[in-house]
């Protein structure tokens, strides 16, 4: 308002518009107009904290158990809401819109330059920066891979002359870096076994990129089956592109980057197949032995030969929550059984009286208004839900 009044005052006096505008803009402070963005969640969290704290303090002054329970609950749930806030989410439609164009551009470049070779994911020994990822595409269909000395010297170069080829950054390189960040390690310092054991948990549970992932290794071939990936819409579009079966989508490319770093050998994507509705993606990777040719010559004992299922299903930790529920239920039911036995033997009470009667003034009191039946129901619910979730997890194996 003040700045507006100044503006009007100045124009009335006949001063130039430029001068008045200068004064107007000077008085406009961007910081003063900064809007406070508060989300509904944060408002709810602070409301819980404040109301809960007030209730707790009041309960101490007036010695009220009900107020204490209310206050304790509000403070706890406020803290929990603050703790479990997720990272910022982006709409899936935005992801689908941004993933496709870079691969389409890559496709256009490769087709325009008439490069016929298969994309080869280069291991760290070909690059100065071991954390980086690069793919090499030869001009000719059966072209040779350049020697590591050449790529080390000209890593930032796009085109190679002898042999003729192109060096590109794969679409999955940043996703692969994210995998490493989440696992708190570099794939270059691990091996194939580590990747096959940790990748499923990372993709399914931690990052929730896909619903399920199965990895099967056999000599120098690795088959991956991904169910309901976040990139399935991008798969459908990219599937029409010439380079797609060779370079892969961001997810399959990221896995290729991880495999080449872990094995220390060049990797190619031999085959990519998607089911009709796009729900299942199957990719076959081949690890190349010799660096001069494409012919795979890997010793069988270097790789795992038996199929590897989702290891996470056999670990104890995922069942911990269900076991804890069962344990809590068992403890409560044991306590109910003990109190019932105690009352029946010592006081000769009837079971209906024990379960449904008030415990005020009793030797074993359970709290205000709480009866044995309440403990029994809570214990039973906990025990059954724990058993059900445990059995459900086991049945998925």
């Amino acid at each position, binding site marked *: 308002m003040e700045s507006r009044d100044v503006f009007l005052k100045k124009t009335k006096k006949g001063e130039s518009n430029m001068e008045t505008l200068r004064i107007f803009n000077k008085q406009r402070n961007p910081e003063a107009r900064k809007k406070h963005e508060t989300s509904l969640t944060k408002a709810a969290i602070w409301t819980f904290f404040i109301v809960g704290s007030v209730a707790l303090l009041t*309960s*101490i*002054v007036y*010695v*009220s*158990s009900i*107020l*204490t*329970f209310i206050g*304790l609950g509000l403070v*706890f749930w406020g803290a*929990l809401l603050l*703790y*479990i*806030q*997720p*990272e910022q*989410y982006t709409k899936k439609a935005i992801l689908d819109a941004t993933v496709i164009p870079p691969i389409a551009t890559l496709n256009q470049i490769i087709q325009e330059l008439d490069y016929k070779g298969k994309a080869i994911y280069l291991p760290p020994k070909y690059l100065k920066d071991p954390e980086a990822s690069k793919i090499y595409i030869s001009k000719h269909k059966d072209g040779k891979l350049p020697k590591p000395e050449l790529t080390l010297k000209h890593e930032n170069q796009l085109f190679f002359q002898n042999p003729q080829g192109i060096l590109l950054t794969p679409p999955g390189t940043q996703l692969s870096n994210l995998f490493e960040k989440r696992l708190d390690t570099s794939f270059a310092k691990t091996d194939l076994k580590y990747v096959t054991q940790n990748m499923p948990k990372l993709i*399914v*549970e*931690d990052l*929730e990129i896909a*619903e399920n992932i199965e990895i099967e290794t056999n000599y120098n071939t690795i088959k991956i089956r991904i169910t*309901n990936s976040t990139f399935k819409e991008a798969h459908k579009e990219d599937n029409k592109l010439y380079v797609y079966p060779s370079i892969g989508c961001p997810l399959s490319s990221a896995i290729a980057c991880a495999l080449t770093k872990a094995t220390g050998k060049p990797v190619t994507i031999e085959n990519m197949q998607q089911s009709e509705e796009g729900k299942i993606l199957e990719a076959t990777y081949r690890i190349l032995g010799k660096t001069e040719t494409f012919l795979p010559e890997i010793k069988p004992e270097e790789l795992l030969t038996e199929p590897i299922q989702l290891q996470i299903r056999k670990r104890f930790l*995922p069942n*911990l*929550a*269900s076991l*804890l*529920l069962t*344990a*809590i*239920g068992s*403890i*409560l039911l044991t306590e109910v059984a003990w109190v019932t036995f105690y009352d029946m033997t010592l006081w000769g009470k009837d079971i209906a009286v024990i379960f449904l009667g008030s415990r005020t003034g009793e030797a074993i009191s*359970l*709290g*205000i208004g*709480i009866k044995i039946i309440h*403990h029994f129901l*809570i214990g039973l*619910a*906990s025990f059954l*839900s*724990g058993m059900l*979730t445990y059995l*459900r*997890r086991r049945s*998925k194996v």
Partner: protein
Amino acid sequence: MQFPLSFWDISLWLAITAIILLITSELISPYYGKSKIPINKQKLRNAALIVGILFLVTVIIRVYEIIIST
């Protein structure tokens, strides 16, 4: 002025809270398919396990008291 809840009231409250959190974390686990609930599921699971373990600690204290008194 004293805190109105006894140790056993808090123990019961911990039990109920642990049950609610454990069941919730199991139901929204990505293990059973993708859920669209925008919360950090791993942190919820951690919170549920912590509350559950706290309840078990109170149970151990109770058992210890019974053993000491006999």
